């Protein structure tokens, strides 16, 4: 089994399953905060996805996308929590 086979047959499928599991949490909620966490984790998993993918296709340029994801996902979370906080203001 080569590394690429390993990535192809193990890493990516497991990451796929993980992302789906997290997505189920996203769908289930129950609170908005749960969705926010799930979304955050989905994005983080996406970074993993990208790095595995960049190994598989030998395309390290894809890691740039991962970089953007890492940075900007954070801002999304900040915005969502800001929203909830504003909404809870009497």
């Amino acid at each position, binding site marked *: 089994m080569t590394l690429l086979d390993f990535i192809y047959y193990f890493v990516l499928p497991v990451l*796929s399953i993980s992302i*789906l599991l997290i*997505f189920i949490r996203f769908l289930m909620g129950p609170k908005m905060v749960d969705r926010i966490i799930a979304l955050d984790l*989905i994005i983080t998993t996406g970074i993993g996805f990208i790095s595995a993918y960049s190994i598989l296709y030998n395309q390290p340029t894809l890691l740039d996308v991962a970089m953007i994801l890492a940075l900007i996902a954070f801002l*999304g979370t900040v915005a969502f929590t800001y929203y909830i906080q504003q909404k809870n203001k009497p």
Partner: protein
Amino acid sequence: MLIAVLLGFVFSLLLVVAGKFFRGKPAILSAIIPLSLFVYFSGFINEVSGGGVIRQSFKWVPSFGVNLGFTLDGLSLLFSLMITGIGFLVFVYTSTYLKGHEYLDRFYGYLSMFMASMLGLVLSDNMISLFVFWELTSISSFFLIGFNNKSEASRKSAITALAVTGLGGMSLLAGALILGSVGGTYTISELLNSNQVIADSPYYIPIVIFMFGAAFTKSAQFPFHFWLPGSMLAPTPVSTYLHSATMVKAGIYLLMRFTPILGNTEFWNSTLLIVGAITMVYAAIHALFRKDLKGILAYSTISALGILVFLIGQGTEKALLAAALFIVVHALYKATLFLVTGIIDLQTQTRDVTVLRGLRKVMLPVAIAGFLAAISSAGIPPTVGFLGKELTYESTLALISMPVLWIALILITKILLLYAGFVAGISPFVGKLPEQFANTKKPGMLLWLPPMILAVTGIGFGIFPALVEPIVFPVVTAMGESLGNEHLKLWHGFNTVLWLSIATIAIGTVLYFILKPSQKLVESAERFEFLSPKALTTVGWAYFNKVSSLWTRIFQNGYLRNYVSTIVVFLIGLAGYSLYQTAKFDLDLSTLNEITLYEMAVVAMMFSSIFFVVFTKSRLTAVASMGVMGLSICLLFVFYSAPDLAMTQFSIDTLTVILFVLVLYRLPRYLKLSDYRTRIKDGIISLAFGSIITVLILEVLASPVDKTISKYYAENAYVLAKGKNVVNVILVDFRGSDTFMEISVLAIAAIGVYALLKLHLKETDQH
């Protein structure tokens, strides 16, 4: 001739700037223009009656084959003389009739514009320029009918008149253009050569119908006649000039002008016969049931126009001569009667024949003019009216089919017209002067002289028919018929025609003494008013308006979702139909890449997040789901080699989420507002749309593609544009203009957002 035609336009333009000057005393000076034109055209009588035709042509829009081409032959000369002659008298009359009116200058402006248009109409040798002038007469008529613009009835009548004549105008346009296409030219004189081609063409009937449409509306033939009585709300000079003497005869002119081109066919003749006959009888009967002088005159005018159409329909040279003569006759006596009515109206403030009596005592010259016009209208010798009537009977008698019927109809018409003429021209002046009119002021000479001149001319032509011959005979010649050695005579000997004349006069006079116009009569007619074309048109128009409202409300119902679904359904319909016709659905699946689990996972996430956006009840959840969707798309872009896209997609999505989040928390709840059925309906529409897109994609993917351009980019990105990220090189170099505009879009959006949130108009700022 160009100058002759343009003179009126120039004068009306002059009035725009120099209106104030002509508003007062100098108003009468404007009559110089029609007078000089009359003199100018009179100068051609000799030449034209000698068979001469004067032509002039000026280039206008040669690309369309449109020239300002003018022909002065017998037909146009007759009309030109009428237009300028009667025009002169009306101009003179108006200066007193509307003395001191604040808009007198505008009135003259419209009037001279009309005169010029009418001249242009009858002189045009080009169908398009004829149409141009035709429409200008309609428009000037609109302004003149609506001259009393503060009265709602006036405004309505103006609109009605414009609508009906406008309908005719459209018809004329279509007829002229088709005729031009078939005949190969718009020049009328050239079309004469191709009349056989035209008659044989499959478009002959449509052409004739269009031409009839124009003529019948303009000349107030049944059932389009109703605008004419309505237009009587215009000041009397207008009624005189436009609505009895000249403009309404434009339709007659058109028929006569095109007789040599389109006439002499079964369809042409019988249609005109029938329509003319119906109109003359119908209108003549109607004249019985009026008590308003102008109303009576309006209906008798319609009837007279019917007679003219009837005569043109007969088509023989005798009939055409009768028509030509009758045009003159009618113009003379009807203009007189209108002018007389105007004087009565002006001096007594009423036009009700049931109260008008004995006015001869206060306005004798007017009474004389009225009397002379009445006997001319009655066709009593030695008036020119007698000549006209004789010719009419003569030609009708010569008809091959059903002469008895036609004679009966024309007889009835003539009797009723005699009655109408007497009522209008004689009855106001005879009998005892009622108290109320005792102090009526005498009309000034400038008022009574014009009708007097017309009336006397009528008698003069009757006594000396040779005077009218050089005007009337060339008309027939111009229509392509030859008259041989005929002459107009008062005395033809004892023949059927004479007996008919005697019968007409006798019965008519008896009728005048038996039947007095009364309120009762008017009311009895009003009971059937709802059946009249006017009433039917009014009802039809109301329905039309209703339908318009309904149609407009069905499509433009204010609901955005209905607009969207209409558009989408339209797209589905067209594209679906086209796809159904052409799609092969034979996809070559082997060329498509295999599917991996991670792709499926992303797609599954995508699908579910879409579902979630659509069906969730929470706005914020929807927005978060959009985030998931964005990430899924981002991952797809990563998988399929588009890192720049992935970056951008994700950043933009996050930014959008932030915007949403900042905006949303003040909004109300995210409710499901539509009912179940709407949702099902919308669901079906949406899925149909989606399916079409899917099928379309698959079809496109199955067809070959040319990648020359992207290959060029790849080969030259570094070599020529010094960049290795080809996408970026495209963005800033190969297709840099796109990017420039893209950032402009952003800047505009930002300004828009800034303005949308910061700009609050104060009350003082609004609008």
